[in-house]
């Protein structure tokens, strides 16, 4: 699947809008100003995710997973570097962890943070593209990237695409590295591209007839 330049531009713009909303949600949650790097976007086959992800987040990661459904359906994952996840929960609970591990309470907090951030991001997709996205209950896991990829591709016979969005959040002098990964099957990916095409046309109509 190759996106045209216009589709790629539109997708990048959509992700910029979505991440601005995500950053705002993170700022509201933590009570701190959040500096957000411009997100970089890449499209991969889900089975080839390993290399692209492990370059940026080596070792253990905290990841929150939500299945989303509707006309565009798939798996949404928010990946955070482990230290960043610990830092984030400390900011939210006003507690400093001695052993830098995520205890049960911290995991619960992180799951809800993932829920809020994934909803903020995918909600923008839903609103802008006029498709309703339903969500499953979020789940948190702590794993290596390799374990995550293996889990994502387990017993899946179908070809799936992974839209990988990488950004860095800087909150209160600390850096949190985060990935948002959307894994879609062919039908959902086709539908996403179709909705993006319609969004492009809608924008062009507005530009011509504001």
């Amino acid at each position, binding site marked *: 699947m190759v996106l045209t330049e216009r589709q790629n531009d539109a997708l990048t713009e959509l992700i910029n809008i979505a991440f601005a*909303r995500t950053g705002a*949600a993170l700022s*509201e*949650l933590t009570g701190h100003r959040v500096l957000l790097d411009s997100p970089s976007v890449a499209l991969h086959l889900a089975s080839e995710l390993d290399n692209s992800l492990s370059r940026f987040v080596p070792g253990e990661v905290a990841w929150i997973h939500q299945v989303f459904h509707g006309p565009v359906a798939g798996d949404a994952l928010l990946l955070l570097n482990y230290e960043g996840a610990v830092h984030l929960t400390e900011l*939210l609970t006003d507690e400093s962890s001695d052993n830098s591990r995520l205890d049960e*309470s911290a995991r*619960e*907090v992180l*799951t*809800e943070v993932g*829920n*809020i951030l*994934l*909803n*903020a991001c995918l*909600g*923008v997709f*839903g*609103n802008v593209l006029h498709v*309703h*996205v339903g*969500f*499953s*209950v*979020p789940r948190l896991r702590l794993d290596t990237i390799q374990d995550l990829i293996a889990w994502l591709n387990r017993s899946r016979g179908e070809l799936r695409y992974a839209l990988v969005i990488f950004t860095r959040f800087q909150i209160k002098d600390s850096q949190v590295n985060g990935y948002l990964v959307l894994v879609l099957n062919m039908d959902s990916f086709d539908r996403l591209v179709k909705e993006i095409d319609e969004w492009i046309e809608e924008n062009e109509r507005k530009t011509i007839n504001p």
Partner: protein
Amino acid sequence: MSHKIMVVDDSAMSRRSLKRILESSNYEVIEADDGMAALEKYFLEKPDLVMLDMLMKGMYGLDVLTKLREIDKNARVVIVSADIQNSTREMAKEAGALDFINKPFAAESVLNIVTGILSEENTI
């Protein structure tokens, strides 16, 4: 007498956050961490308002809302959710929610909505 508000959310973090906001305005807060517990507590405690998370383990918020309406057709329910989609807000409205509050919570907005509803200003 202060109004009694039931906060229903499977996230302890969100319950804590809402509880803090509501108690700052002297509302009495009771908590439920899933839909079944919410239905039981509603029956026993008869809260004046229910603040109901949409996405929970077990029963989904809109299913809980439907059940609450069966128990009490006048049940006053506000949906809370991280979901920012306009279509979701519409679904909540159609299911009978009086209002819709997005997470993360903004204290002033929460209190405005709650105060409005509890003084009979039931609009979405």
